[in-house]
């Protein structure tokens, strides 16, 4: 187990290094610079001074090593777009909202998605199955940039049930969390249904039934527990996707999260913010995948992480 964990940590660090390096050099290939209107207002001489103050007059390779040195000390630099604001403080301020929204959405997605999947499998080839899968197909077909404005307009303005935007009290959380859940509910429902159907044909289920166990015991104790394994495998990446993929929903509901920050950073060539956010997202992803592997081992006792000899 320990050997496995250490090996995975080394892989994680290598992955992160590759991502940082690739992002850094790809970003430097972007046309333009991070100074926006400044170059229109400053004399060329003063603009060169400005670039020198940020170290952008140095060769790209030299800039890279300096940047990596700072990253190793936990310093991701200062935003060009927002002078004086460090990348680390911006991420820590804004990730809170993205994490909260993602977490709320994930709870809804897991509850509704798994529920729909189980229900559809138990009602296989009956009206219940078709209804549940129809809901799933609708969910996966309507992108968040359609569902979010519709929820904001109809539920928020026309019906006035919840606020159409902003990020303040608990009532402001409901519409964005629902908007963000649609796609994930559909994925989880379809996957859970397929997994349940596969498990229902296994010999140990037939054995359990022939032993006279109640349907509830068979479903809860044997089917769901085994069927959920492949779903758990994708839960990690899905969680990351939900937490980091909130751009549209954040923009529509005016949520001060990281998604919209990432896009505006790319538009303004905010080098430090782009790289900082990429490192952050990549770190979340590799850590979650790592934790998923560990969780997988706990759920399925047949898996031996270290590989016994």
């Amino acid at each position, binding site marked *: 187990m320990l050997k496995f964990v250490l090996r995975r940590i080394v892989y994680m660090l290598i992955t992160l290094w590759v991502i940082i390096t690739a992002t850094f050099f790809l970003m430097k290939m972007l046309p*333009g*610079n991070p100074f926006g209107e400044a170059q229109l207002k*400053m*004399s060329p*001489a003063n603009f060169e001074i400005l670039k020198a103050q940020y170290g952008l007059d140095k060769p790209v390779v030299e800039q890279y090593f300096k940047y990596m040195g700072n990253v190793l000390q936990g310093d991701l630099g200062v935003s060009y777009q927002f002078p004086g604001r460090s990348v680390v403080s*911006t991420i820590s301020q804004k990730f809170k909202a993205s994490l909260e929204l993602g977490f709320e959405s994930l709870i809804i997605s897991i509850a509704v998605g798994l529920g729909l999947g189980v229900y559809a499998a138990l009602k296989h080839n009956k009206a219940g199955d078709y209804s549940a899968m129809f809901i799933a197909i609708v969910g996966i077909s309507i992108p968040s940039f359609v569902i979010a404005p519709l929820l904001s307009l109809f539920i928020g303005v026309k019906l006035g049930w919840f606020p159409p*935007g902003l990020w303040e009290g608990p009532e402001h959380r*409901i519409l964005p969390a629902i908007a963000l859940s649609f796609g994930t509910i559909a994925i989880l429902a379809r996957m859970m249904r397929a997994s349940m159907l596969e498990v229902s044909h296994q010999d140990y289920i037939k054995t359990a039934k022939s032993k006279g166990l109640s349907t509830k015991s068979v479903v809860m104790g044997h089917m769901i527990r085994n069927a959920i394994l492949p779903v758990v495998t994708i839960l990690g990446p899905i969680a990351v996707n939900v937490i980091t993929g909130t751009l549209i929903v954040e923009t529509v509901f005016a949520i*001060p999260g990281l998604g919209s*920050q990432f896009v505006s950073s790319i538009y303004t060539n905010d080098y430090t913010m782009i790289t900082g956010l990429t490192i952050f997202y990549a770190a979340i992803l590799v850590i979650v995948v790592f934790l998923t592997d560990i969780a997988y081992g706990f759920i399925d006792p047949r898996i031996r992480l270290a590989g016994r000899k």
Partner: protein
Amino acid sequence: MKIKRIVSLLLVLTVVGSLLAACSSNNSESGGSSKKQELTMNFRTDPPALDVSIAESAASFTILGAVSEGLYRMDADNKPQPALAAALPEISADGLTYTIKLREGLKWADGSPLTAKDFIYSFRRTLDPATKATYSFMVAWIKGGNDILAAEGADAVKAAQDKLGAVALDETTLQITLEQPVTFFTESLSFLNFYPQKEEFVSPLGDTSGTDASKVLGAGPFVLQTWDHDQKLVLVKNDNYWDKDTVKLDKVTLNILKDNATGLNLYDSGASDYQVLDGQQYVQLKDSKELVQKQELTAGYLNFQQTKVPAFKNEKIRKAFAAAIDRDALVETILQGSTPATGFVPTGNLDGNGKQFREVAGDVATKFDVENAKKLLAEGMKEEGITAMPKLSIMGDDNGTGPKVLEFLAGQWEQNIGVKVDISPMPHATRIENELNKNYDIVSTLWGADYNDPMTWLDMFVTGSMLNTQDWSNAEYTKLITSAQTSIDPVARAADLVKAEKILLDEGVIAPLYSRTLNVMVKDKVQGMILPAYGVEFELKWTSIK
């Protein structure tokens, strides 16, 4: 079993509680009641920096204009009214020296005294190359300003700062000597970069100045109480403001909303009193009584690069491209609410002699005339000895209406003069860099006034200017602009600038397209809000709730 019940009960309570909270928030008027002097506005972007020296965006100018103040403040008629200054400046006969008396007993929002030395510190800090101030060029109009900008090393900067032509004669008297006359300098003293700064507050903050509410100090009508980045800013009345009795609003909440549709939803639901509209929303709401239109000093126009495309050295070919564009149709179909251009300097810009520049200069833009465009193109191509135009592309921004404008223009040229032009939309930062590097055939570009004088538009095209990216050169034009830059006779100066614009458009150097208009929804209960044509988005000092 008990645990299940408790969990179920908690879940039900959570949902019910949320619903009740939602209902109560919908029933309450978060936009402010008729008695409360509170305003809630949708604000389109988080201000990058609320630092007097380095602010460069309208968002920063707007908030700093509320929390601080310069020597003068522009009123509803676009006239500078004494603000921190007690009266308009005494100007020497040569137009170079401005002596300004401050009001007695001025205070910063923290209650400490504000004196003339706070202005000197501010000017010096803005001009210090280490501050990286975008608008330092305006402060550099002060004698010795450019020497500071060019100084290398701390000692050289300090030596140059000591020679700056701005001195505090005493605690309430400021004297500014200019490098050369600037006829609109009094108006410019209301601009953000001439605001004072308190050294004891700003200096210890270093690069973090203006990054949080606690790191912003002003002497204006309001105080920045809260700044939740990318979420909201809250302004409250400043009790230490010299003119606090004029300020009616107690509180202003600015919610950061980048999505126009959501902004309008909040406006419609009563959660906001102010919302900027995009083109589509304007079309739907153009008959609304709550619609307010603000003519901005921002113009869209085309540049033709003459070195990369030698055919554009020919005046007739350039003018053919301009004559082939139906500007009225462009505005009606894509830029709803904006105004078709009749010259380069936009409507609303003064001429430096107290008159509207457009009224004096008249309609000088090339008229839309398909037959004339065809004729000019044929003659121009004959003069250049070419039988077909080279492969051309038009570059522009890829956000907002940018791509649609490019498509419209390419369609006009193909349809009206038979010239196929590829479109090349790209991110704003990339477009600017390509434009400055002269890496384009035709570029659809924008310019916004830095100050209300034709010079902000016309000095771009003098020979050798960094912003003259077309590689056009005209000795007479340069002479007229240079003469206007040093003239202290407003009548002769204004006449020179009118002549200069006429040369620019007679030669088809640029093709003006439109003056931009900002369409805004403002609730009826909001009174006295000024929407200035440039600089700040809105002015709150005189705003109240009826």
